[in-house]
């Protein structure tokens, strides 16, 4: 598991039914591209987050493929429509097989 990985998510606590809300996510990750060399001239192995998925009440919201050119601490901001109260589930997939998860509940005001 890569060191110092910590997911962060910002979702409003409440929303009106059918309202479009903005979600911000950030995961601290070094996103080693695999193209850099160390002091001895050897390639540093690639280690990135390769997939990011958000589900709302088991329904997919976004599914992103990440590539090596994406820089440190990938940040995503997107809009989602909230039809009902429920839970957003965020999942990041690491090259080394680790999976980082977090979730946020949202109420209907």
């Amino acid at each position, binding site marked *: 598991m890569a060191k*110092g990985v*910590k997911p*962060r998510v*910002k979702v409003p606590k409440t929303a009106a039914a059918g309202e479009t809300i903005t979600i*911000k996510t950030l995961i*601290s990750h070094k996103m080693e591209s695999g193209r850099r060399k160390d002091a001895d001239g050897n390639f540093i192995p690639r280690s990135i987050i390769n997939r990011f998925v958000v589900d709302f009440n088991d329904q997919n919201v976004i599914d992103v493929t990440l590539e090596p050119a994406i820089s*440190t601490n990938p940040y995503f901001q997107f809009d989602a429509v909230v039809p009902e109260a429920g839970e957003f589930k965020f999942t990041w997939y690491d090259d080394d097989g680790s999976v980082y998860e977090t979730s946020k509940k949202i109420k209907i005001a």
Partner: protein
Amino acid sequence: MELKTLLTSVAIVGFSAGLVSAQADVTLAVEGEVISTSASAPAFAENLDTVYSGWLFRKLETRSLQMDDFDNPAFVFVDKGIDLFEKVDGTEGKACASCHEDVEDFVGLRPAMPRVEDGTLVTMENLVNECRTERMGAEPWKYSGGQMTAMTALIGLQSRGMSINVAVDGDAAPFFERGKDLYYQRVGQLDMSCSNCHEDNYGVMIRADHLSQGQINGFPAYRLKNAKLNSAHARFKGCMKNIRATPYKEGGDEFKALELYLAARGNGLSVETPSVRN
């Protein structure tokens, strides 16, 4: 002659336009809490009427990053600081949290730093390393290293919004005078002092950069150019390299004295730690 007059007037317009954009009526609200970004200058800064936070001199995009703690990239490092605060290190088997139960106990420390203790000028970094070496039995951290800036940012954050109030009299007076001398001392191949840019010319562009007053109320600051937290001393070093001078040592007497003088020039401004700059 006519051309020269014309050029001069253009220069004057350019100068005042720069100032206006720097001093436009904008408010810094971090997470909805308004933080003042200007104050009347302290009496000893005889060439300034008002002191302005560096935040006012940045572009709108950069300014807005600082207004939301989620958007502010410095908080990635503040989170690291929280982990470090809990982490046991050294021969005594202690973490910061073993003595200082809650990091919130440090409310009010940042606005008073640097300060004089027993005849020596100490910065926040000195205090952290003193704890590490004397009470934790751990290795001191590098002065401007990642762990140190994460910790100083976390401690500084507790006092965000409070007015800077650094003591300049009494024991601090000799250090203050030393810092003042350094501020006005021309150095380097370009033969420039701090005041040439940050006092005489703040608000104008130096190439693509908008010169600020060089206030340090937001340090450690996240800089977009190197994507990490920067200590005030690291920033001083950068300035000195720009004027092709040999930088003083980070954590050395010169920079500590300069930090005291600069912090005092910002007396009345609010703590913005951790700020976002370019």
